[in-house]
């Protein structure tokens, strides 16, 4: 229906134009424009450009309506409400199948409820993928291998506690300095999704890669709730369908790319793909931490994200 309200919306993604986040956001924009007959225009900004590069401030802008849409990791949302971190629990899922079953099982509605409590309508999950580890000291295959490694982590309590419990020396640092800091030896390791490891060329300055799928990192495709509720039912449907399409596209692209990237990076770094038994040893080592954080996440969220084994 070409007649109806006309919208110009802004959306941000945390990373750059070469990312699957951005490609999916652009696809979302195209679908919205097409399906609305040109009434819905979406402008996509990379690198959290609308909040001076700060993703947490970006989520706040989404909450109070300064911004209309964003792709942000649940790790960022956990800074606003720690319950969001439940799905990032260490070694929660061993692979994507498990993660998918949990998401379809109960995680999605639980997260929809959480976001609606802070004024955001969740239009589904994309994903940043599983986070992997690189370092310069030694191959990391069992908990004791992490001992003393100066590892750059996101500045979130759970990550700090995780690496500290395993005997590593976790430190935070702006990502723009990570490459040089690894090269100089200021830090010795870091952890990130495969896409970041690959696109930042970390193999040039890192010797060992550990594929351990230690944290599953989903992306919330969020929309300001007031804005969503102001739309007509037809327009809501357009937005929801376009979002579902963009998310599916993003996840598919990311997973396909990840396999290529693991293959490619294994050529460049000495790579350890941990077996289920090896991962189990890590999981046991951080067991106490998991119990400690169950209180933070709350029983409801813990149940919602738990894998069906």
């Amino acid at each position, binding site marked *: 229906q070409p007649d109806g309200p006309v919208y110009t919306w802004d959306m941000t993604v945390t990373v750059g134009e070469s990312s699957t986040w951005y490609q999916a956001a652009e696809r979302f924009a195209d679908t919205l424009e097409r399906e609305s007959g040109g009434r819905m225009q979406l402008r996509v900004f990379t690198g959290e450009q609308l909040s001076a590069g700060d993703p*947490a401030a970006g989520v*706040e802008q989404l*909450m*109070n309506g300064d911004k209309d849409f964003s792709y942000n990791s649940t790790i960022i949302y*956990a*800074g*606003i*409400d*720690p319950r969001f971190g439940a799905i990032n629990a260490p070694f929660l899922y061993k692979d994507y199948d498990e993660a998918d079953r949990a998401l379809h099982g109960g995680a999605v509605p639980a997260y929809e409820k959480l976001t609606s409590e*802070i004024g955001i309508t969740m239009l589904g999950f994309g994903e940043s993928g599983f986070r992997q580890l690189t370092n310069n000291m030694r191959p990391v295959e069992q908990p004791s291998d992490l001992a*003393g490694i*100066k590892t750059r*982590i*996101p*500045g*979130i*309590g759970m*990550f*700090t506690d995780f690496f*500290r419990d395993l005997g590593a*020396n*976790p*430190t*935070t*640092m702006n990502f723009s300095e990570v490459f040089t800091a690894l090269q100089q030896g200021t830090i010795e390791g870091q952890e990130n999704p495969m896409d970041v490891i690959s696109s930042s060329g970390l193999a040039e300055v890192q010797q060992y890669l550990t594929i351990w799928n230690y944290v599953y990192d989903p992306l919330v495709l969020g929309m300001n709730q007031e804005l969503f509720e102001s739309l007509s039912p037809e327009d809501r449907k357009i937005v929801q369908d376009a979002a579902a399409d963009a998310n599916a596209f993003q996840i598919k692209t990311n997973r396909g790319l990840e396999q290529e990237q693991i293959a490619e990076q294994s050529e460049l770094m000495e790579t350890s793909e941990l077996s289920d038994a090896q991962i189990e040893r890590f999981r046991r080592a951080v067991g106490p931490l998991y119990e400690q954080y169950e209180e933070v996440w709350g029983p409801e969220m813990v149940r919602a994200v738990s894998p069906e084994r």
Partner: protein
Amino acid sequence: MQRSTVDRVLTTVENVLAAAPFAVVAVVAFVNVVSRYFLNASLAFTSELTVSLAVWMVMMGAVIALREGGHLGFSALHEAARGPVRGVMTVLITAAIVAFFVVLLFFGIDLAALQAWSGRSTPSIGLPQWLFTAALPVGAVLGVYRAVQAGRAGFRRSTVEALPSEEADR
């Protein structure tokens, strides 16, 4: 110049609210470097504390710089102007400074309230975020006071006289 008691108290408040966060930030950052090397244990929470406290340092430092005529600008026309023209310019300059502080005041309170309501806290130590955002409205109120004060003095300190805080143009 005679300074009122209020003025002296405010000066102390401004100085302390700028110096104390700076001291904490510097000590924490230094201890972090030392502990990473000698104790082999980084204080991973340090960056969020230092980064958050920076807002207090910046707002209160900006107020101090206003008090002392330290902000950089193009003052040639204002200095060259005489009589009523200069008076009008002075009022407009003051109004502009006050306007920016008023925006920081009202919308800063808004943001702090949103953060208090949503319970956003710093991701590692879990300090309430609004404690840091509160620097905006607090600084803005003091800033309005200093701007009006400087305006009444006619921004007499020119850029040249205001050398002391001249680190700015780097």
